[in-house]
């Protein structure tokens, strides 16, 4: 198959040479593909704008020795247009793209479920019907489940007991009092319920959750994801989770710096993650 056609979502673009780009695409049939798009950085390029991250495209590629060459592109849905005008959604979206890129290790290995999940996640994010961090956490949990790393949430991950107490990342989910390793976080029962709702797609329950439980859920999910990936997700550091509460110039009431803002409360509440990010 020297010439083939597929549809996919653009995950990442990297500059190559004078005016070319290497485009990483998650496709429906072929899985993750890296292709060269020639001359797309010139203003006169006929498909430069179609190959921006978040774009859902129909494309034709020519199989090459190491990288394929993208020969034609048609836009199906440019999700980037909707996301880029809303900064919190944009940062959540980039974290989704980076996670999909890291989770799918091999190139040209079909990953249909990941592709469908990506498409659903981008659509939900672009529609703007749910809070971006909930969409992001739902995407993380389901991506992990597709990859075979679904956290145990209803019974102890070690012995199966129903009365659970803590969330132990290394044990694979919630654990009972007897199995609890030292240093495991003890989240609120509502936080675990929120994680279950996000994993199942129960949006009514997820939307009704309280902000503090969402924050706790985000911290646990991010730590769990990065533990299984065995590396950090760079975009996560820039995801905006709580913009409200800071004054317009960007300083928050506690006087922390807006621009290099991190998640101090998350760091404090989850010693396991704090130890790893250090």
């Amino acid at each position, binding site marked *: 198959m020297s010439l083939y056609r597929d549809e996919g979502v653009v995950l990442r673009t990297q500059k190559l040479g004078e005016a070319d780009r290497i485009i990483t695409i998650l496709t429906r049939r072929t899985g993750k593909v890296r292709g060269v798009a020639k001359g797309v950085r010139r203003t006169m390029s006929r498909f430069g*704008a179609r190959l921006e991250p*978040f774009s859902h495209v129909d494309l034709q590629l020519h199989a090459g020795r190491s990288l394929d060459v993208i020969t034609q592109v048609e836009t199906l849905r440019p999700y980037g*247009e909707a996301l880029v005008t809303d*900064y919190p959604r944009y940062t959540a979206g*980039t974290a989704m793209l980076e996670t999909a890129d890291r989770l799918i290790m091999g190139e040209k290995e079909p990953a249909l479920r990941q592709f469908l999940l990506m498409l659903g996640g981008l659509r939900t994010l672009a529609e703007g019907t749910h809070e971006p961090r909930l969409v992001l956490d739902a995407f993380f949990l389901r991506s992990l489940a597709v990859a075979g790393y679904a956290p145990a949430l209803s019974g102890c991950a070690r012995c199966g007991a129903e009365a659970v107490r803590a969330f132990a990342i290394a044990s694979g989910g919630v654990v009972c009092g007897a199995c609890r390793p030292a240093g495991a976080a003890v989240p609120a029962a509502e936080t675990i319920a929120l994680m279950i709702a996000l994993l199942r797609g129960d949006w009514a329950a997820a939307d009704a959750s309280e902000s503090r439980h969402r924050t706790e859920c985000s911290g646990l999910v991010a730590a769990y994801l990065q533990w299984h990936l065995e590396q950090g997700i760079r975009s996560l550091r*820039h995801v905006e989770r709580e913009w409200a509460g800071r004054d317009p110039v960007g300083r928050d009431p506690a006087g922390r710096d807006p621009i290099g803002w991190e998640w101090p409360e998350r760091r404090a509440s989850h010693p396991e993650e704090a130890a790893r990010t250090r």
Partner: protein
Amino acid sequence: MYEGVVQNLIDELGLLPGVGPKSAQRIAFHVLAADPADVKRLAHALLEVKEKVRFCRICGNVAAEDECRICRDPRRDPQVICVVEESKDVVAIEKTREFRGRYHVLGGAISPIDGIGPDDLKIRELMARLADGQVTELILATDPNLEGEATATYLARLVKPMGLKVTRLASGLPVGGDLEYADEVTLGRAFEGRRLLDV
């Protein structure tokens, strides 16, 4: 493989952007054949650029002194600041001769996937420049790609409470192109930003 010094030169030249091993070899042999005075001038220019050029204290553009030529020029309008990603963009805009205000060079665009956040750009310096109230218009001239648009959105939101006029460069059809070859996104933007033709 060549003798030590020649191979060294080829290796060093090969590190330059857009120069492959074959081009590096060609340039190296051109240097070998060239007049010693010409080679000295090239070497001097290379050393001088590293010694003398620094970044403007005010706008972040490349400058030969503490402040760049544009920031020192009293004829430039201090009320309008045009925000660009790189120094190369300043040159591109200067060539149009349309803009008489001043610049601010961010040093890149927000790209979380590459680990570049607002903190890694010269946004703090821009906010400090805007704080004295002299500026009335901020032109966001970041690249019209995803990272550039996200940076423009971020900046627009950050300066909104200051009550400035914030504008974004128009996107649309390139002059001298064919409409039928334009992509949907660009053509859509061109429609969005169409203007009244007053004849």
